[in-house]
Structure formats: structure tokens, C-alpha cells
């Protein structure tokens, strides 16, 4: 077979949803660090968001399933932990999709900019941790809805 271009592979990976937050893709999340051909083998470097995130193994399975479905036969997945993942690597479209989904995107200031539901800035933190390692629990004191905030690291 002819080797698909690296750009084509990136486009395929951009169709693979994050298993916990399916509105964003693995590329949006910034965890695909490198795609290269080494001879006939496609090498994909993946970095974990948090070192103990249980989604990591599912993510690797989904990358493999997607690329195999697109005809990639020789595939090598590499775990790359340095430099460590940062929310700066979330794409702008990823941040917009998070907000539309009801998850406040990360802010350098350390807390959500506004309520993802009613846009109020009257907010309080409920807990530094949330439903996944990458999120915290906040609440809007205007519309009273609790929401997830994607922690800035």
C-alpha cells in the first residue's frame, strides 16, 4: 500500500473523540505529540493528561482501532511524558467545544471565566476535583447550576 501522508493521519486522529469528553477529539486535547513514518511503520507519540488517568489505555485502543480501520498495518504507539501535557495544548476549537458542551475551559487565572450555561461571572468553587482528574467542580450563584471546570495545568 502507499503510505498515507502524515497530514492525512492527523486528520484521521482529529476524528477520534476523547472517551470521557466526546465533544473534543484527541487532537483538540493536545495529547497527540508526534506522527512520523519510520520506514513502513507509523509511529504515534501520545502523552497522558494525568499520569493516572484511566482513559489512557482506552485512548490507545481507540487510536489503534481508528488507524487500522484506515488501512494502517504497522503501527507503534509511544508513551511520551516529557514535556508534560499542559492545557495550553488544548486547541481553540477544543476550548469552544468544551464551553458549548457545558464544561468551562481552562483559564490562566485559575478559575472559570464565566458560567458555561448563563455566562454569569458570579461563581463559587465546590471542589478542586471533579468527575475526571482533569476537571474541578464549580457552581454558578446566579443560575445555581453546578458545572465542570477544566483545570488549568
Amino acid at each position, binding site marked *: 500500500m502507499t503510505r498515507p501522508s502524515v497530514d492525512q493521519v492527523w486528520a484521521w486522529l482529529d476524528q477520534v473523540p476523547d472517551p470521557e469528553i466526546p465533544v473534543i477529539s484527541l487532537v483538540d486535547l493536545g495529547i497527540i505529540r508526534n506522527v512520523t513514518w519510520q520506514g513502513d511503520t507509523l509511529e504515534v507519540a501520545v502523552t*497522558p493528561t*494525568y*499520569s*493516572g*488517568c*484511566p482513559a489512557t489505555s482506552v485512548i490507545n485502543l481507540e487510536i489503534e482501532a481508528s488507524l487500522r480501520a484506515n488501512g494502517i498495518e504497522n503501527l507503534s504507539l509511544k508513551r511520551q*511524558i*516529557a*514535556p*508534560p501535557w*499542559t492545557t495550553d495544548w488544548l486547541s481553540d476549537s477544543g476550548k469552544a467545544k468544551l464551553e458549548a458542551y457545558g464544561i468551562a475551559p481552562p483559564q490562566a487565572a485559575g478559575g472559570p471565566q464565566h458560567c458555561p450555561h448563563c455566562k454569569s461571572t458570579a461563581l463559587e468553587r*465546590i*471542589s*478542586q*476535583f*471533579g*468527575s475526571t*482528574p482533569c476537571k474541578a*467542580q464549580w457552581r454558578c450563584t446566579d443560575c445555581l447550576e453546578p458545572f465542570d471546570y477544566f*483545570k488549568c*495545568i
Partner: protein
Amino acid sequence: MSVIGLIRMGDNTLVLGQRLSEWCGHAPALEEDIALANTALDLIGQTQLWLDLAGQREGQGRTADTLAYTRDAWDFRNLLLVEQPNRDFAVTMTRQFLFDTWHFEALQALINHADADISAIAQKSAKEVTYHRERSTDIVIALGNGTEESHDRMQGALDRLWPYVGEMFAQDDDDLTDMSVLRDAFDVHVSQTLSESTLTKPDSDFAHQGGKTGTRHSEHLGHMLATMQVLPRNYPGATW
């Protein structure tokens, strides 16, 4: 580069991760339950990185799993502090605060380690531990300033656990970095937090020893390992 130094880092995060997991479903509030479980998850993830590297460098085919599940108490190299039982929430969070404060400084030092694999694990872990330290510091301040009951329990927890602080800074050539030089930065953060908490730093510098050398673990470690290891020991190689 010392394999024992790597095992020490991994055993600390493993044993504390297991201890924190014991709270799952029992914490005083749902948010705390989730927070403790998430902290445990970070620590277990870091364990995987440290112990996998230890196994690779040792070169005898051991993995993070075999190191975690098939060694007995005397082969563990964790600090005595992290194997202490949870008791109440005050003891759990004081133990966490003391450990996080040491862990933060140790990882900052290891980021500059000449070995690229050690530096990489430290860089990854330091991000998570910065968050752990922030949280446990906030809780020590909140509970120290809380009710008479919460204040007394926090002071009691501090008095109980203080004799386990010294071991973290005991000079030992097997460590990945000289831990004794981290004491000043530790003392600054602890003193500042305790003064904001209206808690009193215990006077005594007496320090229990024997966890990181494995020579004198407390009786608590064996009980914890019995629970943690029962499945892989009874059903070797089991998968799901």
C-alpha cells in the same frame, strides 16, 4: 543511579495511593471522597512510572506490577509517614499535607536530575503534586481555623505525625537526590501554613527511622499489603 532510589519514590506514591483509596465511599462529604480518590489516582499513576523505570534499570524482568504485588513488607522502601493508618480525616489530611510539602520539594529537585527519564517523571508528577499541595494546605488552614473540635483534632494529628517528618530528610546515598537540603524549604511552607492555621508546630525533633531503608517498618504496612496484594497473590497472572 540507584534502583533503590527509584523504588523509594514509587513505594511512597504506591503506599499513600493505597491508603487514600481506603477512603473511597467513606469520606465525610462527596466532594472530599472524589478529591481523595483523584489524588490516589495521580499517585498510583506516578507509581507506575517510577516502578516501571526501577524494573527496567534493575534488568531482571520485574515490572511495576510485580514490584507492587509480590514483595513483602521488608522489601518496601517507603517513608514510615505514608504507611500510617488513615484514622480520621484530620490525620489523613495532615499526613497528606506533610507528604505533599516534602514531595513538592523533592520533585522540584529531581526535575534537574541528570538522568532524562527521572527528570521526565519528576516534571510530570510535579504538576499534579503542586495541585495536591495547594489542596492539602487549604484544608489544614480551614480545619485549623474551623471549630474547636476540628482545631483540636488537627493539632492532635500534627502531634501524632510529627515524629515521622525527620525521616523524609535523612541523608542517605541511595536517594535520587540529597533530601537533607530540602528541609529549609519544607520548614518555610509548613511554618507559614501552621501560623495561618492557628496550629502549633511540635517542639521535639525526634524522628522514627526505618521505612526508607526497610529495616523497621511499622506493623501497619503488612496489614495494608495483605489487603492490597491478596488478589494477585491468590490468583497469579489473573487478568480482567
